[in-house]
């Protein structure tokens, strides 16, 4: 632009000077000089206004809404980020193959385990929302639907339907768990519930807490979108990462905490009992999602009758490619048997598990997953990240459960399970998993009934899982 201006001035000035050569009058020379100066000013003004126009256009661009598409999803945002809407997605396509299952029909096959569009966002800077329906499984359900107000990172309020603050592995995102299915500890803790929670991360997550009041759900259950009785359940969790902000690298990834619930209810239906996944009655499932235990007395039925509390100490440790996650859970529930031979009991079931992992390609393992250093791109030598994982777990049913509340001929009283697997993270969004799980049972297996849990506990469970997952 300076060159243009200089040229313009020189050209015009030269023409005028040319005239001055013919001029023999000093006044005329002065007038011509003034004209050059005036033209110079005009050019400078044009240039400056051009600069200001560019500045104004840049300011306008800064104020324009932002659209971003990357491995974390699609995001629309106001320029000041006070208003944000993001679209994420999770699709899990699984295969399950059971070995030596002696006549358990219908458990092998392909499965659309999860198919979720995930809508998240922010309105007015401090209000976040999440709406997550699921189209996987047998019916469409709302999994998450909540509003969160961030007064400060350490003081937030959440209302709606979301994961109860209890299980360590359960609170981990579905897309980043070590295995296709969570451990048997998950059998004893609540899943998603409807309620209100106060929570926060103090000092960037050195200490996290959550306290909430919920409708209350049976073990491993997702809440319906409404309550089933009058009482409430209270849930709380405290989790510390004491070295997170220190320079002690080997301990930065250590986290330890405890969570629990307390609720009281007396209902005449079975919704206070554990999830019915894998069977027709409330009960507990194996790693292969088969029901090995059910509240299935030979006659009569079982309902909740009073206090139900849970407690779950939990810890994890991440250091470089190594990961270790462990948790223990107790679910203590007062039950009532109705029908012939009515009875009451306070039954306490327990479970624990330890999951370990090692990223073979050297990336850091974290609670939020593994991000490959070299995404899959064979033409350029990128093969993603590979991780070996292993897990051991046990679940023990209270001995007083049998025979009044469950049939010892069909339901197991305990299980022991181990799994190992290989996860291949092609890139941030696509993961392929393969794993093998073996589960052995104590008790059960003596009934000839061709349905769960009797046909599941007939023999050990050996299952091979695979998964192709898209998560963005």
């Amino acid at each position, binding site marked *: 632009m300076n060159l243009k201006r200089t040229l313009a001035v020189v050209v015009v000035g030269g023409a005028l000077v040319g005239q001055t050569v013919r001029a023999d009058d000093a006044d005329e020379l002065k007038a011509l000089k003034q004209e050059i100066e005036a033209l110079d*000013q005009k050019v400078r003004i044009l240039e400056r206004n051009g600069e*200001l126009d560019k500045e104004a256009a840049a300011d306008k661009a800064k104020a324009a809404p932002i659209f971003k598409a990357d491995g974390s999803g699609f995001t629309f945002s106001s320029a000041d980020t006070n208003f944000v809407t993001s679209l994420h997605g999770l699709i899990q396509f699984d295969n399950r193959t059971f070995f030596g299952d002696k006549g358990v029909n219908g458990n092998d096959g392909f499965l659309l385990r999860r198919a979720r569009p995930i809508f998240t966002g922010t309105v007015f800077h401090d209000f976040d929302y999440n709406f997550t329906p699921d189209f996987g499984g047998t019916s469409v359900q709302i999994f998450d639907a909540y509003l969160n107000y961030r007064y400060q990172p350490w003081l937030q309020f959440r209302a709606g339907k979301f994961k109860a603050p209890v299980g360590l592995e359960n609170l981990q995102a579905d897309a980043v768990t070590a295995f296709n299915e969570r451990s048997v500890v998950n059998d004893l803790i609540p899943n998603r519930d409807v309620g209100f929670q106060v929570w926060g991360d103090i000092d960037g997550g*050195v200490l996290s807490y959550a306290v909430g009041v919920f409708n209350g759900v049976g073990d491993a259950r997702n809440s319906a979108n409404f309550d089933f009785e009058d009482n409430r359940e209270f849930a709380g969790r*405290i989790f*510390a990462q004491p070295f*997170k902000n220190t320079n002690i690298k080997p301990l930065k990834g250590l986290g330890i905490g405890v969570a629990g619930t307390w609720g009281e209810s007396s209902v005449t239906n079975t919704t206070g009992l554990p999830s019915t996944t894998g069977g027709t009655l409330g009960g507990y499932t194996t790693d292969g999602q088969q029901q090995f235990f059910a509240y299935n007395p030979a006659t009569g039925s079982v309902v909740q009758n009073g206090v139900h509390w849970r407690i779950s*100490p939990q810890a994890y440790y991440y250091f470089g490619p190594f990961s270790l996650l462990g948790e223990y859970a107790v679910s203590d529930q007062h039950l009532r048997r109705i029908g012939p031979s009515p009875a009451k009991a306070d039954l306490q079931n327990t479970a624990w598990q330890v999951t370990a992992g090692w990223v073979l390609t050297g990336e850091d393992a974290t609670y939020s997953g593994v991000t490959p250093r070299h995404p899959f791109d064979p033409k350029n030598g990128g093969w993603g990240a590979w991780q070996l994982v292993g897990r051991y777990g046990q679940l023990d049913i209270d001995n007083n459960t049998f025979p009044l509340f469950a049939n010892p001929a069909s339901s197991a009283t305990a299980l022991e399970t181990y799994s190992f697997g290989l996860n291949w993270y092609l890139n941030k969004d696509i993961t392929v998993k393969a794993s093998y799980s073996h589960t052995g049972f104590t008790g059960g297996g003596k009934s000839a009934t061709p349905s769960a849990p009797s046909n599941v506990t007939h023999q050990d469970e050996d299952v091979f899982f695979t998964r192709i997952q898209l998560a963005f």
Partner: protein
Amino acid sequence: MKNILKSGLLTALAAAAIGLTVTSQASAKDVTLLNVSYDPTRELYTDFNKAFAAYWKQKTGDDVKINQSHNGSGKQARSVIEGLPADVVTLALAYDIDALYEKGQLIPKDWQKRLPNNSSPYTSTIVFLVRKGNPKGIKDWDDLARTNVSVVTPNPKTSGGARWNYLAAWAWASQKYNGDETQIKDYISKLFKNVPVLDTGARGATTTFVQREIGDVLIAWENEAYLSLKEFGTNQFEIVNPSLSILAEPPVTWVDRVVKKNHTADIAQAYLEYLYTPEGQEIVARNFYRPRLQEVADKYKSQFPDIKLVTIDAFGGWGKAQATHFADGGTFDQIYKPN
């Protein structure tokens, strides 16, 4: 026995979690403040922030980092209302800070009573910066309306300084034409016809005049005019003091909503109060703002010539002045037609 073991395990885990957390909490305190200011205060607050950080470190042991944001005063006020997390605002005029209460409820209505001198720790006025030798012979406001004079001043819609410029010109014309509004408007209209470039802020206008070499006269903050002399030398520019100008009182305040959220209320208040101390006033004067503290004002008396000054009260206060002159459809919109 089984239950005792479980209880013991749980208690130990909880105690370990809490205990380990408590031991990791002790750490040095680092504080960050954001000072959202108007255009020409960059140098003032660069100096002042260094002094305050040293003072605060000595007083409390804490390290404070003060980030600065500068632009046209009105534009900055809008940014804060729209979410720019300013711990303190140090703007060109009270009207812009009033907007933080009126449009954002970010501060209390009576914010101006929280600090001395209506929360204005320093003042300034409006003068002319002309080229060396004053080739157009500019002496007073009427010279700016001559057809052969090119005037540089920023846009009163976006710049607090420009509003002071405009009102100073209006005050002079009001005196000259005995309050005859038709003649005053005619004068202001002629003045703005001579403005070839309308920058959004005072610093931009200085750039236009000093660096881009546009125009014969810059209507400028006194401090900005002196800063130009300091930076570019007296062999390039001269300052002309008009016969009448306006007392500009740039105010300051902390933004309650933000400091509450950031837990910076105490330090934000201390930061602004430090402006009133002898040390703060010295820095103010060194940066060519007129200090409030008499002992410092006396020391720098020769730097600030006596000029007859009107105050914003002559216009009925900032609320009325804004509504009459600078609101959409106001006097400025009526008289200003882009060239």
